[in-house]
């Protein structure tokens, strides 16, 4: 498709990953990826092809075996542990297949949590902003419910708001609709597209859903440890 003009928020060059277990498992053989600000990219590939592996590396949850990874212009291999934590806090947001909300907290508390982790407490305005987002995604009535009393779709929508809490530049979504029925999945996807367009956040979404994948700006496929563009 069209190469969007704008700042590169993700750039990898020759990214390789081999898991060092009893038997070394090579997964990624040299990925070159460029994502610009506000872009919505979907990644497809067979199970075990390394999609989650790639996303974890892009989100600084894991480290590459080889190659360059620049997130928002910063080479992440130069960052300390705390530097990586700041990156995860301020630059990237994560949405996983499972919602991964904390059972001990309510929906609203979960969504505000990244702000509190970043700076100790949230201001009134910040809480109101999160509150507004939750209302927008249809959770106005669930604010003080605990995740285990909410539906899968509701939890996933809450998780998306949490990923947006610190106004990141990038949201990495690993099969965010994987656990949802097609209707809720569609809703969650539309929500992500809207946010991407409105706030100007780049989305990288891994999905098995062909239809959703095709609704993105760009589709990439991982095959045999390498990345290629579709269409």
């Amino acid at each position, binding site marked *: 498709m069209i190469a969007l003009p704008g700042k590169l928020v993700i750039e990898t060059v020759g990214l390789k990953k081999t898991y060092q277990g009893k038997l070394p498992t090579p997964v990624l053989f040299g990925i070159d990826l460029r994502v610009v600000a506000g872009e919505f990219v979907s990644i497809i590939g067979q199970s075990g092809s390394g999609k989650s592996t790639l996303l*974890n590396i892009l*989100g600084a*949850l*894991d480290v590459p075996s080889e190659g360059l990874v620049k997130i928002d212009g910063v080479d992440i291999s130069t960052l300390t*542990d*705390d530097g990586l*934590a*700041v990156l*995860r*806090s*301020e630059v990237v*947001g*994560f949405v*996983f297949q499972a919602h*991964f*909300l*904390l059972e*001990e*907290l309510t929906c609203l508390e979960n969504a505000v*949590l*990244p702000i*509190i*982790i*970043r700076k*100790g*407490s949230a201001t009134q305005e910040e809480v109101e902003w999160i509150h507004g987002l939750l209302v927008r995604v249809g959770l106005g009535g669930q604010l003080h419910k605990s995740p285990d009393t909410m539906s899968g779709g509701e939890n996933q929508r809450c998780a998306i708001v*949490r990923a947006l809490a*610190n106004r990141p530049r990038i949201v990495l979504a690993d099969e965010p609709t994987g656990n949802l029925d097609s209707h809720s999945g569609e809703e969650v996807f539309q929500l992500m597209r809207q946010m991407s367009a409105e706030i100007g956040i780049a989305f990288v979404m891994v999905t098995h859903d062909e239809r959703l994948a095709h609704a993105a700006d760009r589709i990439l496929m991982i095959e045999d440890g390498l990345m290629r563009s579709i269409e």
Partner: protein
Amino acid sequence: MTITTFLPRQIRFEGQLAWRHLRSGGGQTWLTIAAVASGVIIVIFIMGLIFGLQRKFTALLTDAIPHVTVQVPEGKPIPYADLPGSRPGPTSSRSEMQAPQRKNIDDWRTVLSIADTIPNVRTVSPAVAGQGFASKGANPVGVSLTGADPAQQELITPVTRNLIAGHYIGLAADEVVIDYELAKDLNVGVGDRIRITSISGIPEPPRIAGIYSKGQGRGSAYVTLRTGQSMLGIGNSVNVVYVKVYDIYGADAVAERLAVLLDCEAKSWSSEFPNFVTSLQAQAASAYLISGFTLIASSFAIASVLIVSVQRKAKQIGILKSIGARKNQILLVFLLEGLGIAVAGSVMGAIAGIAVVYLLSLPKQAVTRVGGVPESLFPLMLDPLYILAAMGAATLATLLAALLPARSAAKMNPVDAMR
């Protein structure tokens, strides 16, 4: 308002999460709190028992003896060769200078006023002490003589409460109080006159004013200070000053002070009973050892529960890291959790420990002496100092136990944790 309102803003989130962990931990939280509390209870009990027993034994031992005895140092025999003016070179002589007599304390009033300035000193009694013979008719019997003001001496070596007959307080110049053994040997009773002689003094024929029994061994014959001075022939001086202190374990320090201030020999009761003091120290050491092992054991229990709890929270730790939590924040969450357990456990342990010690001190011993006050079966002692020390040590042990799991939580790899 929650408990975390009191935390500084920067760590309120960590405190809140730790608090929620503790609350959601339920039975496990109570288990760890109970482990800390039992540690504290055992420490308070052991300390209370050992130090209570020590205090009782020490009181029994030192109740009826002087705590510090001040005397002028005894001169040592000087070999002839070391005498000033003796001819140099080898001598065949084994002759020695005669040992000087134990000197008297002439300015004993100064001694009293100096002793009174030492804080721990409770009471002081100037006295004369020496050996003599008591006789009634035929065979003389050896006797220790103590001449002192009865009211003062009573506070040092109580006589009145051991009296079988007669009186001690208000002793007249021509009266003596002797012990039961001596009265039996001389076959005399209250009101009889006996004869007392010493090497240096004037023989006196005092009347027996009272007879006492210590229950074991022979005791002194007590006369007034003036009579004693004349019997032993030492004029207006005394040859010993007895001191009683408030804090029995501070007697050594008082003796040292006196020795320095007065340039004389001051012996504390503990130097008379070195074995007793050593056994006290050994007991204290074993109390500390038992306490230490107890706290170590309970911190192992706490550590193992916390390690399991951290492993169960692996997923949560991964989530927190994925949304930006720093290592130190995770570390702090689990340390605060440990702190919560430590504080709750040591406060509850202290309350329970005090209750246990109090309840155990209730049963009383049967009274063995007429007019005696019933004593506790367990002479337990509660000292705020070691209760606080037990709480502090337990808190420290718990925090150390929490450190290991907290560090492993902080180091956890977020991807592994969430898998």
